């Protein structure tokens, strides 16, 4: 359903915030409300597919379930290789 649209928007935000020079992207943290109208397994599948492509390099999505309808990218984890 609309999970792919949401996943693409998440990746747009990640792309905007991700400083490639700071390291490789490891994790994308997403807060998702119980009333956000999203099927979390479906969203996870879409995100994993998109994040497997450049420039994201196989980062994994990590979901934090919340009450209400919140839906936001909460954090990125980068590995700086040191």
């Amino acid at each position, binding site marked *: 359903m*609309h999970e792919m649209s949401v996943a693409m*928007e998440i990746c747009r935000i990640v792309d905007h915030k991700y400083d490639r020079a*700071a390291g490789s992207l490891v994790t994308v*943290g997403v807060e998702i409300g119980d009333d956000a*109208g999203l099927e979390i397994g479906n969203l996870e599948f879409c995100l994993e597919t998109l994040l497997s492509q450049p420039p994201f390099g196989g980062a994994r999505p990590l979901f934090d379930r919340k009450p209400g309808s919140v839906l936001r*990218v909460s*954090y990125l*984890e*980068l590995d700086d290789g*040191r």
Partner: protein
Amino acid sequence: MAVRTIEVRERVMERNDGIARDIRQRLDAAGIVALNLVSSPGSGKTLLLERTLAALDGELRMAVITGDVQTQNDAERLARHTNRLVQAVVTGGACHLDARQIDTGLEAVNLDDTDLLFIENVGNLVCPASWYLGEDAKVVLFSVTEGEDKPLKYPKMFREATYAVINKMDLLPYVPFDVDRAVAFAREVNPHLQFFFTSATTGSGLDAWYDFLRDLAGGPSGARPARTARSAP
């Protein structure tokens, strides 16, 4: 390996909602009321709009943006009833309209010559609930052939809606649909829902719908529905 955390805290829908707020401002400035019609496929959105355009054309200045996954069939049906603009958006597989598509669709609408904008969303009771399009209110349709527990199965849509139209009332003698139970279920989800009971086929109940539209689009700005925090982020 040293992992560093970068805080982001950005709403996923912010870009859509920002475009929708811009749309809302433009519509407000032009004095246009916008209704976003949502339902499952086959509830009668297009026929209700056909009847509405035929009945009120010449009385209210109406424009329609209609979304479908494929084909422009709905837009072609609607255009038979009015010389005014019916703008088709073919989503190409997407299950909802988003604010960017409405923004593009509005480029063809003469805002200075419009009182009432209908957005006929893609037939789907799940996804369109999550996308604010700059509308004054969502109108959710469901028909007596669908079962009275639709509001319990799709609560987000019924929470987001300000108005509910129970359609195909002419079929009541032939289906096991309890209108009182349907209304009770809907009010359980959203106590403030206002109802219309219509048959777009026979025309029963449409006078109340037309009067409502006349008040909304032709009346003072105070007649506008209050937008909820959810539908107008």
